[in-house]
């Protein structure tokens, strides 16, 4: 039974990984090999899917298939950076907060973290992007400013526990420098928890990046981006469903592949902790 369950977890992970790599390979190869450019007007407007244009063409006559795949690295890249920065910043700040002995700093920064977390995630990001100006760069900055607090809160709770573990005490008794203890002994153990959260956060951030573009706060046209493509085609959805449905499917595909990886890893971890 245990072996079977572990294999099921493996199945999820492999499924997700192959879905994700299929998409990444497509994102790499399709714009290179296709005879159309992503922003090139190639045919009549709103042509339905055919062998010539697999996903049809959009309102301006651009090939949707090429546009969907040339957006892969924009969307996933922005989401990846938007998770990586808050993950590292939040883990370090949260860990420092968890092992700090200064009660005043702990109280002030702790309540600041609660304050940031109090804002509804999407609303806060929208407001920040409004003040920073629309664009991919400001989306990443806004995501980092908002999300580090969530990671910091997880890291703080975890660091308090890790800090009392025997091996940390042992490292202290051996007289290692505090920075070495922090980076070699405490942070690796704290980050196992924040990294697990980062994976499910990645799904939310992928959707958030696209949602911001959908609301008109994302990348500048004519750059292909899923949320923006859905927005541009949403007015003509009754005439040309393909121009918004295929980018939406690509977005869901990316989210589902990460969700499967995350689900599989969780199953495996649960299995590991039970034994």
């Amino acid at each position, binding site marked *: 039974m245990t072996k079977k369950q572990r294999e099921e977890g493996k199945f*999820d992970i492999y499924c997700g990984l192959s879905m994700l790599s299929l998409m990444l390979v497509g994102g790499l190869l399709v714009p290179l090999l296709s005879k159309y450019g992503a922003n090139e007007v190639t045919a009549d407007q709103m042509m339905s899917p055919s062998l010539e244009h697999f996903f049809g063409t959009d309102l301006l006559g651009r090939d949707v298939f090429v546009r969907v795949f040339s957006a892969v690295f924009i969307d996933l890249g922005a989401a990846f950076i938007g998770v990586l920065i808050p993950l590292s910043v939040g883990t370090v700040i949260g860990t420092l907060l968890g092992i700090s002995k200064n009660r005043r700093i702990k109280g002030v920064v702790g309540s600041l973290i609660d304050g940031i977390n109090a*804002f*509804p995630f999407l609303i806060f990001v929208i407001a920040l992007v409004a003040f920073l100006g629309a664009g991919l760069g400001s989306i990443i900055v806004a995501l980092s400013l908002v999300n580090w607090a969530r990671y910091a809160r997880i890291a703080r709770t975890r660091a308090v526990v890790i800090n009392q573990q025997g091996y940390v005490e042992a490292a202290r008794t051996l007289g290692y420098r505090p920075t070495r203890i922090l980076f070699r002994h405490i942070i690796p153990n704290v980050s196992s928890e924040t990294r697990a959260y980062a994976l499910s956060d990645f799904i939310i951030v992928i959707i958030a990046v696209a949602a911001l573009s959908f*609301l008109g706060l994302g990348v500048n046209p004519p750059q292909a981006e899923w949320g923006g493509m859905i927005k541009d085609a*949403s007015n003509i959805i009754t005439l040309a469903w393909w121009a918004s449905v295929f980018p*939406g499917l690509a977005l869901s595909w990316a*989210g589902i592949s990460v969700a*499967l990886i995350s689900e599989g890893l*969780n199953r495996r971890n649960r299995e590991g902790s039970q034994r």
Partner: protein
Amino acid sequence: MISRNLSDESLGEEISSEQQAPNKNRGELRRTFQGRILRSCIVSFWVMFIAFSLLRISPGDPIRLALGTDATEEAVKVLREKFGLDKPFLVQFYDYFTGALSGNIGVSFFSQRQVNEVISTHLPVTAMIIILSMGAAIFISIPIALSVALSSRSSSKRVFGVSTSISLAIPGFFLALLGLLYFGTVLNWVPAAGYEGEFPKNLKYLWLPALVNCFSLVPILTRVLHSSLMDTLDEEFVETGVIRGVSKIKFYWSYLLRPSLAPTVVLMSYMVGVMIGGTVVMETIFSLPGIGRELIQAVSTRDYAVVQGIILVFGLIVVFVSFVGDLLGYLLDRRVTLS
């Protein structure tokens, strides 16, 4: 796991720590209550401070951005004085803070509308969507969680796990568009535009946005409900219920659901923030006159005073609702441990 991570990290700890305290006497209850109030006040203070700082620390000059490049120096100066932006930072914060306490959270840059007036006219629609979607989510989640928890087949748990995580990965605005395409254009069940404010009539406009919005809540809700039902099923009083042969409805409600509700209630209060975010998108797609659409409009016209006011109010609402949710969870849980 996703459920816990998604909503709030502290959720898990708080639920478990509250469940582990069996004998709570009155004094302890009061102390917890006071502690929670104090914490909410401090967090509210930060919420105000963050909302306030947004306008002051933004890299460009918000007034200049709002007025456009061809604004005269004179106009910029007038507006700057009107909003007190020429005073020192702390003085501005003091003015803002005292103003907010007396219910004045600013005036729109362009029209002469008070921001709190904008919010009070548009809040009912947003609140209605959130309440409807939460109601729908509860209605959908309870049977799913119950049937999965009571099912003896391991495959049902597997399907449940995968389908909840997959449905979380599908973006709401995409679902909304598909829904609008199918129900609006094909079936003609949803009015294409317009809105009527009165209660029974507005359901015609709100049912689809609420339904789509609840899809982001259902997977999380079913997961938490399912896991707390599994905990409840391990309790001995469930066996007692079976042995005593109580009626089915009574068994499901008093022996299974009610003892499992506390974590769900706390979760719901934390999910209000996520729901608000989803509602903004829904209001934009279905062109409903809620705060979310007002926010997006204010963002695109660069009416920063309105943006600031709206996120302040949403932040405070979330702080308040999670305070109430914590308390409710605490009280519900207390009843469970007493019975």
